[in-house]
């Protein structure tokens, strides 16, 4: 690290710079009015949109405010063509979605996209929309080749706001809202629970006279007249509150003179968790909450007429607390399992109800301890840019050093407490049986984790116009190291990247780019890799035959081909080195003296290298009839050199654990399409409608899997992550049906059990009958629309995923399994009298070994369309506000995650266990001074 900093300073001293400012280089060209005027950030520089030949999508930070959520990732649903966003859970501070660009491309471990904030690796989740200028997705090889071995999964570039010349602008906003769980599972009450449990017992062979619940008990459950001995508790409503508050406050300033430009921001997020407030009720609890402070200072200083300094400082500090030792998943797990009749929340004497089988979730909340954590993220970079027009016009150089790091410390204290189970005694007397003994708090007071990244970068940029020809070039040297955790050797990268673009007459564009980089994880001879790409663009609308056309205002066709890499290959670090590890011991000598041994570890993989991907992309963008924008891309990506164990080809003669070799192959193809209509900007009613759609389907070409007994058991030729399930063919009708069907080896079956298909016709249903089943959600679409009318504005975003199946599992769906409860899904279960209409197998009170096996019975259509955001606003301006010294003021009503259209009756189609996702309704105001 000191080495890198030292080298960084040497470079800073040697700065030969060019302005990062994109406007400087394109000056002198008379811009044709029909060309898009946007500037697109391409990483290490930007280009005007017309010049871009790669496949990229960009969204402005302003738009992201429409989703009111503390995680910036959750603002991106449907907004960026080709960026898949999969919802995580709804727990404040832990809700980061999974981001994928054009689906997934490897069956290896590394499908994460590269996320860069102002050019350097940093998580995106904790940024707030107010500090984001743009977010750009780089998709094809032309756009990602410069990222070399890190680019193949696609790149997400986040650019934070910087100041512009002009008077001071002040913006203040406040937004208050409430969170509410979108879907909670629907479990049956005590009466139905008891009734159906008895039915399950009888099905399992218990004599009707011996079932668990007597008629007397059933009556008590139905009437609710004995709530302590025969309770009927809805634990969800005992533990969770209906709504929880969520607020955001933002203040930012920006402006600048010719010498100094600045953007300064402070933001505060304050969210309450869904648990009931318990801190004031117990010494051993703490309210669930999440608070975060974001700050940013981005400053550019013109030091001389050639030299500019750039300072980027951003950061967050967050505080999170949770009761019950932060065991969110176990709390929600016990809520989903604990039968409603197990015990009351409190016994008559105000002790906690409990049983030996289950703890009391409300008691857990109050009595089992507290978790607090404090996290910090720091983003800092310092750079110098020098114009070198005196060497040759259009040349500049920059140098940057960046320090990005995250740190989390936490304290987690827990304890046990006593609860009491009740049983009837003499007369109306109740017998209390104590369960558990209270203990004092114990656990971990201080624990921490960190990540550090230090990067040094030097650029050489050249941009110049020669008559009708424009030339743009960037060459960059990069060196970085990253450390994870407290110790451990850092991960080191070095590389040179370049991009050369040539445009003739704003019609013909050609670009060559490359990344040439190295990692310390590979042997010296193969640690460098070259990742080149070429792309071509043709702006047909600037040709004579189209120029001036009233139909086609703008038409660009582009194509690219190139090679990119993925360095998240999985496996151990330094796989090229043959390690020797302690194995066991052996004895020698007449006294049988013990000797330790060192033996050969998994065999070294001397040629280990990156995953590589060839990417082919053809696209077009157009504006027709002035207001209609279109774009379309098709792509094909071939990923190879994926690490896999060569189980198929290497015989066991090898005598050692096989290494993972770069033998795997996959492909991925698909398309992306966008249509947008913008109304005339002059009229009173202004609106736009935009539809995005994309599709990608991948396939494993080679994964070197071992030989299988049946052809359909191979993963090769199937999509990555293909489910293999038994195929359900209905329920067994009667004993004769069972006798005439293939034997299911998993358990003795009876009428009403799920019947599986004998895929290989061998008369037995066993492991060989698992068959590829289910779809992976390969289609994503979004619809966005906005309207403005006389100060009113309305905007909405729908996002949906199609061609998707979900698999039902766990206590939401599996009645009575693992002593859990029963939900509405099981009401129409199989019984002899409902055999023809049943849609759920016969009930078992015990663990059924047949019906809950992975089978197509539990596969459901998981397509959905969600209204991710809806905002209605009214803007006040003009004389009224100016009198108050306010330039503009806007009030707005926002709904985030308002509803989902889907076929899932019992749960959210994306989050089917644990903390539910949340719906947020909020009211806000923004004032510009």
């Amino acid at each position: 690290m000191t080495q890198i900093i030292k080298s960084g300073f040497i470079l800073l001293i040697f700065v030969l710079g060019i302005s990062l400012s994109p406007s400087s280089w394109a000056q002198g060209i008379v811009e044709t009015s029909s060309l898009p005027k946007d500037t697109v950030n391409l990483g290490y520089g930007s280009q005007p949109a017309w010049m871009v030949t790669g496949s990229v999508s960009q969204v402005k930070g302003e738009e992201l405010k429409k989703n009111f959520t503390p995680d910036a990732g959750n603002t991106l649903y449907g907004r960026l063509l080709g960026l898949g966003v999969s919802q995580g859970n709804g727990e404040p501070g832990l809700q980061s979605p999974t981001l994928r660009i054009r689906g997934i491309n490897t069956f290896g471990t590394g499908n994460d996209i590269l996320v860069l904030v102002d050019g350097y690796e940093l998580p995106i989740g904790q940024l707030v929309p107010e500090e984001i200028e743009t977010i750009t997705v780089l998709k094809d090889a032309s756009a990602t080749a410069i990222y070399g071995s890190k680019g193949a999964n696609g790149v997400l570039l986040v650019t934070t706001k910087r100041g512009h010349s002009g008077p001071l602008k002040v913006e203040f906003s406040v937004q208050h809202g409430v969170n509410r769980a979108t879907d909670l599972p629907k479990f049956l009450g005590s009466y139905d629970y008891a009734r159906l449990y008895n039915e399950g017992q009888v099905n399992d062979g218990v004599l009707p006279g011996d079932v668990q619940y007597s008629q007397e008990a059933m009556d008590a459950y139905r009437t609710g007249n004995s709530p302590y001995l025969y309770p009927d508790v809805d634990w969800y409503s005992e533990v969770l509150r209906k709504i929880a508050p969520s607020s955001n406050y933002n203040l930012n300033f920006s402006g600048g003179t010719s010498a100094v430009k600045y953007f300064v921001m402070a933001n505060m997020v304050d969210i309450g968790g869904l648990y009931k407030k318990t801190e004031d009720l117990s010494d051993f609890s703490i309210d669930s909450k999440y608070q975060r402070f974001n700050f940013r200072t981005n400053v550019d200083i013109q030091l001389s007429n050639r030299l500019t300094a750039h300072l980027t400082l951003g950061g967050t500090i967050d505080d999170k607390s949770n009761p019950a030792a932060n065991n969110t998943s176990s709390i929600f797990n016990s809520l989903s399992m604990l039968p409603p009749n197990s015990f009351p929340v409190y016994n008559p004497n105000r002790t906690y109800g409990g049983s030996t089988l289950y703890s009391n979730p409300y008691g857990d909340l109050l009595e089992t301890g507290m978790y607090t954590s404090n996290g910090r993220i720091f983003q800092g970079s310092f750079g110098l840019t020098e114009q070198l027009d005196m060497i040759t016009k259009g040349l500049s150089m920059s140098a940057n050093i960046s320090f990005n790091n995250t740190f989390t410390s936490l304290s987690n204290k827990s304890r046990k407490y006593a609860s009491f189970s009740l049983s009837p005694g003499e007369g109306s007397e109740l017998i209390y049986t104590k369960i558990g003994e209270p203990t004092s708090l114990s656990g971990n007071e201080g624990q921490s984790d960190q990540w550090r990244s230090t990067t040094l970068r030097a650029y050489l940029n050249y941009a110049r116009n020669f008559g009708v020809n424009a030339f743009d070039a960037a060459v960059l040297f990069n060196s970085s190291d990253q450390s994870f955790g407290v110790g451990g050797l850092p991960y080191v990268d070095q590389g040179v990247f370049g991009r050369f673009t040539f445009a003739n007459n704003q019609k013909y564009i050609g670009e060559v780019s490359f990344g040439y980089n190295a990692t310390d994880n590979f042997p010296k001879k193969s640690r460098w890799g070259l990742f080149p790409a070429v792309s071509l663009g043709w702006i047909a609308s600037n040709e004579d035959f189209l120029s001036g056309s009233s139909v086609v205002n703008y038409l660009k066709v582009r194509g690219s081909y190139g090679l990119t890499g993925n360095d998240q290959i999985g496996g151990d670090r330094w796989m090229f080195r043959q390690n020797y590890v302690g194995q066991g011991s052996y004895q020698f000598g007449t006294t049988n003296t013990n000797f330790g041994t060192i033996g050969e570890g998994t065999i070294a993989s001397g040629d280990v290298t990156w995953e590589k991907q060839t990417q082919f992309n053809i696209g077009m963008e157009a504006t027709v009839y002035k207001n209609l924008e279109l774009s379309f891309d098709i792509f094909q990506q071939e990923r190879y050199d994926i690490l896999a164990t060569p189980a198929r080809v290497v015989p066991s003669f090898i005598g050692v654990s096989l290494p993972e070799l770069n033998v795997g192959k996959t492909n991925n193809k698909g398309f992306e399409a966008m249509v947008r209509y913008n109304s005339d900007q002059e009229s009173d009613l202004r609106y736009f409608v935009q539809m995005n759609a994309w599709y990608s389907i991948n396939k494993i070409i080679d994964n070197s899997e071992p030989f299988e007994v049946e052809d359909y058991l191979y993963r090769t030729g199937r999509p990555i992550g293909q489910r293999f399930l038994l195929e359900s063919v209905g329920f067994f009708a009667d004993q004769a049906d069972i006798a005439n069907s293939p034997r299911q080896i998993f358990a003795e079956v009876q009428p009403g059990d799920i019947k599986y298909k004998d895929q290989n016709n061998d008369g037995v249903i066993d492991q060989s009958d698992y068959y590829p089943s289910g779809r992976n959600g390969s289609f994503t679409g979004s619809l966005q629309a906005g309207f403005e009318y006389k100060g009113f504005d309305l905007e909405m975003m729908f996002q949906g995923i199609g061609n998707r199946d979900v698999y039902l599992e766990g206590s939401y769906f599996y009645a009575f399994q693992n002593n859990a409860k029963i939900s509405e899904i099981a009401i129409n279960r199989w019984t002899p009298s409902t055999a023809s209409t049943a849609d759920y197998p016969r009930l078992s009170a015990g663990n059924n070994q047949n019906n809950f096996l992975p089978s197509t019975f539990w596969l459901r259509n998981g397509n959905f369309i969600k209204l991710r955001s809806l905002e209605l606003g009214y803007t006040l301006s003009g004389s009224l506000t100016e009198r108050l010294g306010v330039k503009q003021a806007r009030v707005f009503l926002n709904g985030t995650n308002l509803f989902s259209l889907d076929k899932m009756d019992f749960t959210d189609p994306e989050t089917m266990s644990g903390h539910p996702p949340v719906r947020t309704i909020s009211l806000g105001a923004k004032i510009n001074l």
Partner: protein
Amino acid sequence: MRNIISILLIGLIYLTSTSCEDMFGDYLDKAPGIDITADTIFSSKAESERFLVAVYEQALQSPWGYDTYRFGRGQQMNNIYNTIAGFVTKSDEAEMGSGWFISQGINNGTTTVTPFLDRLYSHRYTGLRYVHTMFERIDDVPDADQNYKENIKGEMIFLRAQIYFDFFRRYGGMPIVERTYSPVELAETFIPRSSVAEMVDFIVSDCNYAIERLPDSYPSQWKGRITKGAALALKAKTLLYAASPRFNTTTPILSMDDPANNDMLCYGNYDENRWQLAADAAKAVLDWAPSGGVWLIEDKGVDKNYRYAWEVHDNPEIIMADKKAYNPQSYTYWLFKTVGGGDGPMPTQSFVEYAYEKKDGTEQVWEVEATNLDQKYSELDWRFHQTIGYTGFYWNKQRGVLNMALGPAPAGPHGAANKTGYMIKKHISDAVNNSNPSEPKNWIWYRLNEFYLSYAEALNEAQGPVTAAYEAVNRIRSRSGMPGLPAGLTQEQFRERVRKERAVEMAFDGHRWWDILRWQIGREVLNGPFYGLKIYKNQPITTPLTFRYERYAFETRVWQDRFYYYPFSVNSSSGATNEMNKGHLVQNPGW
């Protein structure tokens, strides 16, 4: 201005003329860590000896032919009970109480490929890789002298031969892997199964290589390392197996699908000289023994010599023992907790009847039932009393006298049912008891007694029952108080007597199953009813107790000729890999 430009140009030249590697020195190289690599391990004699120990640990797989037990390496170390059981219950020596044991599927002929698999198949290749790695790298060790290196090489090549012998006696000819391979190389290299002739030549040639380099003995702290005697012993054993009917024949008992591949199963001709080679090799072991400090235990008394030789660690009869300390804990669990050994390995009455003569050298008479069980036992060969736990046998101080009698409860601590009426005593020393259940045990690979009998057997086949053959067998018999074989036996009669002598002398030592295979007598000895005893106290009760018995068939065994050659795995389940479909192997007949 000009200065600035000069500085910048110099800087640029500096940056571009030196590579990134040079500019940052070893920036991209891994910083030194505490991990051990192939280069550090062979950087000194001391380091490499840690690897040498690992070679022994990995390459010396259980001498007990662990192939029919369920578990892989690791478990077997702690489990003499299962080790014995997995082995002896396949042969006629014993029956397994636990029905799930794979040997039960072999007994009744129903076993299929997967259960029959040789569980150490891939472990043997692991051992081979260790051996080859050491062999290939020992010359790199800077501070070891040439003698030391030659010694190591001899040990390695012996271990290779031993591993191949263990393959050979299961499968016939096997692919010969003579060095370490990289996975890529091996994926591209086709190594077919060798013929039996090639396999035997390979093992013998390795033995000869080792014999030239190995010492007769080691200092006591290195006891357990491979000696010249071990290499001679392996050579003798290999040649004996090679000369035996399974291999030394024109056609195999079952033909391969393609008869052209039958050379993987047998020589394709009978050659009497193979027996002479086997005899010479066994004689070489006997001749070598004194120089290695190895001799037959004959001075402890006729009722103790035999037991001393299996019970005492590092006793002079041992040519080679696996010094890995095995732990008989589970056996004692069975012995002391689940009374009567109903779940464990139980010697069969059939074996007792076949193997054990009376002390006077005549056959014991076993009626269908009789009241004088105690007397019949007492008349048997001294070695019976040093091998088998029977009703009336004094086990040790804690266990006292065994009593396997059936009868009304409570039958006492020893009285629960046992299918055959016997337990195995051999390999469980008296020191093992409930409070000391884990006496470490060295497994004996080669003991000198074996080579007397091998010599006699081979000599008889090569030359007929000559005097030297008689002398060798009688040396073994007489040290246990048994009279010599009657004079004037025919070659066939002598063959039968020497085979029986092997069954007695090496009972439960892990030889019988292999002997049955190499003599191809499975159909004769492992087919048909198997007998045990139902034992009752004589009524009225006598003092001391006496017992009567009823002889009964507890099971009918069914022999399959395909058992003579083990199968290769055909699917990827149970941790085994599908070796067949990788193309190197030809499946053995009948599987």
